[in-house]
């Protein structure tokens, strides 16, 4: 890759930040963002020209988010609480919605986050998760189904 890294940063910083805030929450997003772009800067010259830069950086961001979750799991802090009562007559606040997403099982969570916060296509999600496009699509679909079941009025 011989494109200036700055141009890549200009294009990808917003989707990466959006993905990380949804994925690890606002507090931890800063650290993960820094680590994601430091890793990208280091690897940048070796990235092949014509690569899918969005999918590439989201793969890194996803890995940093997982590292964060693993580190957190080792520490004795309570798991993030999921709101128990959904507000039905008004749109859910972003934070609440994404807190619910974070509580999904790992594969569904990753697929939903990459697809809807990272704005990747299912094919790109598949690359980031090293699975088939069909599996990525299915995980995102299952995840959404669960969220809707939790959130629709009964």
């Amino acid at each position, binding site marked *: 890759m011989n494109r200036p890294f*700055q141009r890549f940063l200009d294009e990808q*910083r917003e989707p990466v930040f959006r993905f990380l805030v949804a994925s690890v929450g606002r507090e931890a997003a800063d650290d993960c963002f*820094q680590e994601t772009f430091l890793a990208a800067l280091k690897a940048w*010259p070796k990235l092949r020209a014509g690569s899918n830069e969005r999918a590439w950086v989201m793969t890194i961001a996803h890995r940093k988010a997982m590292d964060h979750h693993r580190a957190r799991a080792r520490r004795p802090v309570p798991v993030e609480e999921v709101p128990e009562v959904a507000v039905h007559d008004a749109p859910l606040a972003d934070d609440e919605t994404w807190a619910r997403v974070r509580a999904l099982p790992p594969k569904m969570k990753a697929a939903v986050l990459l697809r809807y*916060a990272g704005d990747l296509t299912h094919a790109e999600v598949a690359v980031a998760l090293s699975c088939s496009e069909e599996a990525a699509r299915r995980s995102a679909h299952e995840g959404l189904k669960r*969220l*809707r079941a939790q959130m629709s009025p009964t």
Partner: protein
Amino acid sequence: MTDSTNDSTPALPAVDAAALDAATRRFLDAARPDVAYAVLDSPVGELVAAVTPTGLVRLAYEDFHGGVDPILEDLSRRLSPRVLEDPRRLDAVRRELDEYFNNTRTDFDLPIDWSLYSDFGRRVLQATAAIPFGHTASYGDVAARAGNPKASRAAGRALGANAIPIVVPCHRVIGTSGKLTGYTGGMHRKEALLRLEGIAF
């Protein structure tokens, strides 16, 4: 997902622009780019200035090279694609240029990265860097100081490849007859710099 319309897909979460800028700032503070650049204002137009860990490597007239992007792409190819915009790393460059244009500085103390040139070309530019403020030299002079008095044509080519005009003062090199010949950035800029230094031409 945010209401009862079950077949909707989640909207992209909103991004807090200030939080994004703060996160970007934190990344830049920790990053070690191979090339850091900034766009600087000057009386001779906008300049794209770039430094490496070694020193100043590029000072380009923005409008003479078709804008910032072609200048960055060129640096990316010739030096490294690890290029980041980080004006704070250009503070010393900005300060010395401001002083030069305010006529309070005659010599630049900035470290220079000479890695873009080899052999004769580098010696020509280093000889040029030694021409004092307010003085001129001919192409033959700098060729001689670079070790080959007969190579004034090659010296001209080397000066044409000067990536750090103003600081490496190729504007002080003029034809033996006193003719200004060419300049990277256009003749009007060569004239403006000579006038600033009180050189009659």
